[in-house]
């Protein structure tokens, strides 16, 4: 099937009491595609991520991944199915080293388990050695090869963001959700990040959905953009179409440029 969507949502809705955070959200991410989700603060973007990844059970609608309905599945099942994510406010394992953080990601695909480790079975030692090598390789890819033995939270901010991505990649996802990966980065770091996201997409054959406030990033790397405002989808289209959409300019860009003026 050509143009088959790897991830699709149907009328996804999330209500918190009286507040409708997301209403009738429909998105289709093509396999291998890079898609953006934008909108003003509180528009419901992170809520969409939380519904897709199983952290929230949607109050209505469906999430379909690789043709399978995964609505309401637990977060660890969603991850096992092949969806990995990062968090808007970085969530690394604070007491662990960078290498351990990535190895924890790799644990999902590990065959041997606790009692193999308890008995020091050779198969287990071999597998953990391989996992360590895999984790080191991922650290190298995100440019943290020399920082494997540092505590995750002692790394500079940009490095923590990249470590979070390395950790997500260790779960061997087919689909990656990035929640504001460029937040808090300077323009130069952002530039690097864009190149980096492009390269991992090629290397790992990923489909990517990203939330981003930085318009330069979204417009620069996304092929298609969904725009949310107060939980409603107000526009869908290519970067050019979104740039010139009157509703979007009013809801989002307009406000921003007004604020900047």
């Amino acid at each position, binding site marked *: 099937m050509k143009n088959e969507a790897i991830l699709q949502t149907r009328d996804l809705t999330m209500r918190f009491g009286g507040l409708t955070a997301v209403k009738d959200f429909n998105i289709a991410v093509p396999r291998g595609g890079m898609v953006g989700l934008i909108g003003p603060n509180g528009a419901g973007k992170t809520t969409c991520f939380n519904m897709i*990844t199983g*952290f929230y059970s949607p109050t209505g609608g469906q999430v379909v991944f690789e043709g399978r309905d995964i609505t309401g599945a*637990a*977060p*660890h099942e969603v*991850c*096992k199915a092949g969806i*990995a*994510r990062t*968090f808007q406010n970085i*969530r*690394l*394992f*604070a*007491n*662990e080293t960078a290498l*351990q953080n990535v*190895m*924890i*990601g*790799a*644990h*999902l695909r*590990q065959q041997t*388990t*606790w009692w193999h*480790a*308890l008995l*020091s079975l050779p198969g*287990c030692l071999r597998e*953990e050695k391989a*996992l360590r090598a895999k984790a080191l390789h991922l650290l190298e890819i995100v440019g943290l090869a020399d920082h494997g033995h540092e505590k995750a939270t002692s790394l500079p901010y940009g490095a923590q963001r990249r470590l979070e991505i390395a*950790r997500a990649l260790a*779960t061997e996802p087919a689909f990656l959700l990035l929640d504001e990966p460029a937040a808090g980065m300077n323009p130069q770091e952002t530039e690097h990040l864009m190149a980096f996201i492009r390269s991992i997409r090629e290397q790992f054959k990923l489909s990517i959905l990203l939330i981003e406030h930085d318009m330069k990033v979204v417009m620069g790397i996304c092929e298609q953009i969904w725009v949310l405002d107060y939980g409603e989808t107000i526009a869908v289209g290519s970067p050019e179409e979104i740039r010139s959409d009157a509703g979007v300019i009013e809801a989002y860009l307009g406000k921003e440029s007004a604020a900047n003026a």
Partner: protein
Amino acid sequence: MNRANATLLNLAAVGCLAVFLWAAGRHLDGYKVQIINLIAVNIILALSLNLIYGFTGLFSLGHAGFMAIGAYVCAMLVLSPAQKEMLFILEPPIWPFSVVQAPFFVAVLLGGLGAAAFGVLIGFPVLRLGGDYLGIATLGFAEIIRVLANNLPRVTNGALGLKGIPAYANLWWNYAWCLLTLYCIVKLVRSNFGNALMAIRDDEVAAKSMGINVFKYKMISFTLGAFFAGVGGALLGNLLTTIDPKMFLFVLTFNVLMIVVTGGLGSLTGTVLAGIVITVLLEWLRFVENPISFGGYEIPGIPGMRMVVFSLVLLMIILFRREGIMGMREFSWKGFLRFFGRGGGAR
């Protein structure tokens, strides 16, 4: 430091311990030997709680309950049917305890397995609770076990307790179990499975997003902890040769918790060190509970005083050195040799 060298050094350390135990058994008086025995048991108990609380972040206060189960199962199995018939004066013991007797090792193992079975049983409802609620629920569990021990005369001989348990738990047994516990828990927490447990402790949400089945992993850690707590309880009961429900009050859990917190949550080295220090101090501080004559004055002993002292010490640790003796650091031969190399080296 390669693996073969480290293994050699570990074996050498075990050898030293064996020599020490042999010498202690020959030359020290019964009271001191008893304290050395208690150290091993307390280390087992504290290691198991550290696995649950320090490494997995599950604030469990149910240790006294697991210990009681281990102690009763083990005692009922090592006592001979005839001895049990003598002990149970009100009602006869329940089948199969009325007819079976097991060797000590098997009895301790089954004590641990009994505690683990209860770990699974209560883990299912309570491990879905977070933080403080888990503490309260497990505390309630331990109390229920104690009340049951009081009210199931055919299993536990009720408030009378079990007396004259044959004292098999000598230095060798206690330290063999202690080393086995240490070995198992070191293997676990150093493996990638251990990393996953620590991930749950550090950030449960992120752990879930990494595909970790958080509930299942909590269950495994809690059950393994319960198993070793049961083993510790079995050895303790055997060491004291008498058990009754009053023995398994909350203060027992508190002592174990104190060792874990003092040593450092998430440090096995710290647990071992604190296990030694606190066991010795707990005994040594008994003097503050005895009357002291001081320059002609008679100061009456205050019962419970040492627990006051210990509670204050625990408070101090929590206020001023929350990471305990070791923080999350661990002993390694490499670090050990480097330390002494630097100290003794001519540079």
